[in-house]
């Protein structure tokens, strides 16, 4: 609940680094990532051994509050959310009141202990029932003060809801997330379906027991979902540069009891896979792809709070996508599959053109796949 000193220090050091990044990016474009990594690990070594936060819904219900106090909090939180109206939508495409109110319910869902039997609807009018309700105590996973603080952070500081509750529901998974780790997006859920379709084909049977890589795994979402699709001998290596992401992904992998299937390794893109050239059955990635000059205009939840490392794809957003694309040609084994998420049509076309010009001989069946909103989002294909 209360952040430890060490944790406060960590967050500060992160912010500091991120603030320095823009000039850094401009100066060291082609080798941005490795340098960034070394600067990170040297400036705050305790990041290496950090312990991930426990999501709200997994914490013990060691707090309590009375029903009237909770109702008061709820009224306050509701009116705070309602006061937003559509101002944030107009400002930076942020959340509107409807969405905030839905999130408020999810916050309640995560922070109240299962207790509905002892709750009584808002009908007590007689003195007898009123006393009964007033004296009722509700078990909570956070203190009432913290509930006030968290909701203020959500609405006033625009802290992403997922960082407030420490988790994100993604496909059929509930993944732990925290500051410093990109919140997995609904669009990315589709990559799992793309992989699933590939694995279902009889001709691709071998990939089910193959070695897969999720590059820039973040919370571990893709690695975990794909780890659960693979056969008995299938394995996923999940890499990430950020020590926070590595810690969180490891936590999530353990929570789904996939330690034997998903191996989380710290390092930039293919670096932790050096011995595996030509051996991967599949590569998936949702690398940073937002063009650097779009970062400042992002919705506050994203631009102000989510890790720039996971968002900024350099000048045209293609730096990491191109790097991964080149790597895929050498790391995939023949008939290996790849799927990458992009910023949209422009990047998809760019990537397909790039492959056509530079690695044509090694890649085949390249296609562009749209997300559920109809935006061309993914580039998929096979190693020849």
């Amino acid at each position, binding site marked *: 609940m209360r952040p430890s000193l060490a944790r406060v220090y960590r967050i500060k050091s992160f912010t500091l680094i991120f603030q320095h990044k823009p000039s850094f990016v401009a100066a060291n474009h082609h080798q941005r990532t490795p340098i960034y990594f070394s600067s990170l690990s040297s400036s705050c070594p305790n990041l290496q051994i950090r312990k991930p936060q426990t999501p709200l*819904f997994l914490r013990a219900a060691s707090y309590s509050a009375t029903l009237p106090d909770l*109702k008061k909090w*709820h009224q306050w939180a509701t009116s705070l959310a309602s006061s937003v109206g559509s101002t944030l939508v107009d400002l930076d*495409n*942020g*959340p509107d009141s*409807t*969405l905030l*109110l*839905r*999130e408020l*319910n*999810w916050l*309640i*869902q*995560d922070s*109240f202990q*299962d*207790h*509905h039997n002892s*709750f009584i*609807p*808002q009908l007590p009018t007689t003195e007898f029932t009123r006393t009964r309700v007033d004296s009722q105590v509700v078990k909570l996973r956070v203190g009432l003060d913290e509930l006030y603080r968290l909701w203020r952070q959500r609405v006033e500081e625009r802290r*992403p*809801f*997922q960082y407030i509750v420490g988790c*994100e*529901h*993604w*496909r*059929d*998974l*509930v993944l732990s997330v925290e500051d410093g780790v*990109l*919140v997995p*997006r*609904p*669009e*990315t*859920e589709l990559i799992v379906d793309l992989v699933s379709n590939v694995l279902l084909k009889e001709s691709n049977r071998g990939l089910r027991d193959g070695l897969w890589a999720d590059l820039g795994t973040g919370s571990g979402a893709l690695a975990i979902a794909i780890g659960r699709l693979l056969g008995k001998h299938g394995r996923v290596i999940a890499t990430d540069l950020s020590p926070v992401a590595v810690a969180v992904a490891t936590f999530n992998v353990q929570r789904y009891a996939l330690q034997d299937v998903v191996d989380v390794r710290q390092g930039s893109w293919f670096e932790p896979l050096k011995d595996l050239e030509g051996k991967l059955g599949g590569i998936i990635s*949702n690398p*940073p*792809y*937002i063009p650097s000059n*779009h970062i400042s205009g*992002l*919705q506050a*939840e*994203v631009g102000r709070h989510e890790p720039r490392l*996971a*968002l900024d794809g350099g000048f045209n957003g293609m730096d990491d996508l191109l790097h991964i694309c080149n790597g895929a040609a050498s790391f995939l084994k023949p008939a290996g599959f790849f799927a990458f*998420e*992009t*910023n*949209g049509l422009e990047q998809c076309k760019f990537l397909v053109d790039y492959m056509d010009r530079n690695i044509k001989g090694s890649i085949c069946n390249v296609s562009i796949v749209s*997300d*559920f*909103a109809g*935006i061309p*989002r993914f580039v998929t294909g096979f190693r020849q």
Partner: protein
Amino acid sequence: MASAMGKSLNLILLLKHPSTRIVVVPKNCKGYPVISFSNCCSSFSRRLHQQNQQLQQLLFGSKYSTTASAGGSASRDSNSSTSYYKKHLEMGDEELMRQCEMDTFKASGPGGQHRNKRESAVRLKHLPTGIIAQAVEDRSQHMNRASALLRLRTLLALRVRNSVDLESYSPPKELLQILPPKSTLRGSDCGPQIGPNNSKFVLGMQALLDLIFAVEGSVSQAAKLLGLSTGALSRLLLSHDSLRMAVNDLRASKGMKPLK
């Protein structure tokens, strides 16, 4: 929250099945009945939902703004093509999904990493019938898709009627399977009675409604054709909220008393 919807539409709240909350609204602007469901799908997050769903409902009013509405004309005059419409429910999820247009309510904009809005709502439009099912209550898009699909199946069963030949009626197997064991027509090959939580229940429910519509809402006549007592069939009809409401809507339209 759905409070605006609730106020304007005069909700009748029925809390009967623990996992299913159904809100019936008399008519929408086009004159078609609109049903709103809240029915989570089975999963890890279902448990999370159930934990607090009822609590929040009771404490803070309606939690979900989920609607599933039936529209379009196809579902109204489907009697001519019996086998065709029956097939929808027999389809697997993937196959049924292919008949649907999926819409995620996303506003314009680049989406992806640009956006952190938890907009995981899903709306499915079943193109052959025009029936729309949607789900917003779950926190992941994947789960909302599963909920919407489940809801679509229920709506197909409720809204799409197949003609029944009463002269030579014999209940189809999927209907026999949802009947209580005391039915005289139920052979031992039917297995145990299938309840509302089984995904096969909707198939039986569709066949049962086909029969009830064919006998114009007469429970006693339908009971005879199913080898059941009127009481036993009534109990079955009352055991499932949307089934009961479909039957009572029909009975109301024929000037008959509702089943209670």
